[in-house]
């Protein structure tokens, strides 16, 4: 078993901001897990993991002159509705938040039910402003 699973979040920031969505091919998720993850290259990636593995998410912008950073990853209640809160850009008054400082990395806990996808909300921020944050609820982690 690989101790580390990397999930790459590939973002076409110009496309996503123009469309106002991360769908329509504007975002692609790929992982390097050892098991048969489903939906590689799509927004419906279901990464197969085992407890104790470290999962790390990294955002990459297709165009090197644009910014695309993960601003939040929130796990959704299994089978339940997504949280009401709409993702929003939290404009910093005075200061500037450098999202590049954040490392999206964590250990898969032991209490997960096997075979059940745990969906998460992935929020991506592109540059800044009130329309800069877009999100997806479709990707998931699932215990083998």
């Amino acid at each position: 078993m690989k101790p580390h699973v990397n999930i790459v979040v590939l973002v076409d920031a110009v496309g996503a901001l123009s469309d106002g969505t991360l769908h329509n091919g504007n975002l692609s998720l790929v992982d390097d897990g050892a098991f048969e993850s489903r939906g590689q290259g799509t927004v419906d990636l279901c990464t197969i993991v085992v407890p104790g593995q470290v999962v790390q998410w990294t955002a990459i912008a297709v165009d090197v002159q644009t910014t695309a950073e993960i601003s939040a990853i929130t796990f959704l209640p299994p089978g339940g509705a997504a949280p009401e809160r709409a993702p929003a850009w939290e404009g910093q008054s005075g200061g500037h938040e450098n999202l590049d400082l954040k490392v999206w990395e964590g250990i898969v806990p032991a209490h997960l039910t096997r075979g059940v996808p745990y969906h998460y909300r992935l929020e991506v921020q592109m540059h800044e402003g009130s329309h800069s944050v877009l999100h997806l609820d479709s990707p998931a982690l699932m215990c083998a």
Partner: protein
Amino acid sequence: MAQQQGIIVLVDIANALQARTLTGNVYLFDNMAFLGSTGQGTADLVTICPGTYWADGSQATEQVLNWLPASLGSIPPTVPRSYHADRAQATDQEALEEIAGVADRAGDPSVDTAAELEGLRRRVGARARRPRGGRAPAIGKVLDVTGNVVTGEGQAYNHPNPVITDITGQAVDEKVMYPAQYGSPDMVSDGWYWAASVDTARPGTYRYTMHIQLHELVWRNDEPAWEPVDLTCESAIKVISDPKRNAFTGAGLGMLPMP
């Protein structure tokens, strides 16, 4: 942030040539205002270079800067690269057609052929010479900003874009940034541009000097020539460095917050 930063160097060429200085005639912009660049649109731009380091102290990010010179009141850089050559060719073509007309009328004693040819000669436009060994632009005829040929001295003409010829100064001397000129298929920069990678492991504000060459149209013996005028302007980078931290816990590695 794995992002390349663009720094636009906008020059008011006509005023800079008149004053023989870039002071007050240059406007700088970059795309990192949201991370703390200051002085956008002025000559006092301080470009932020956000650096990050891992928990063990090693450098996590490197920044890349790209300088793109632009000029006020010039033919836009988005027109096709063959624009100058196309316009020059078009005026030559028109002149040839009119010469044929003059030739047809040559037999008519009421037509002043010499005056017509003189008028044609003026309408063909002026072809400026390039200085020897200079970095003068490879353009033929002198055009005004609307794309029409310039025929005589004293007419309004379009300056070629400014050319960055070197980047020096404190930031380079102290080896905080490593500038070099690169070739590019990018039409905006006309094939060449200056870029630098920045060592973000050494926070601080460092000044640097851009050496910019402008071109002035000089008439000698009724012949125009582009003469290079070398000027400099200053700017600065501000390198900051912050630690990377786990986004879920705010500190070190922990369990994923899964329900």
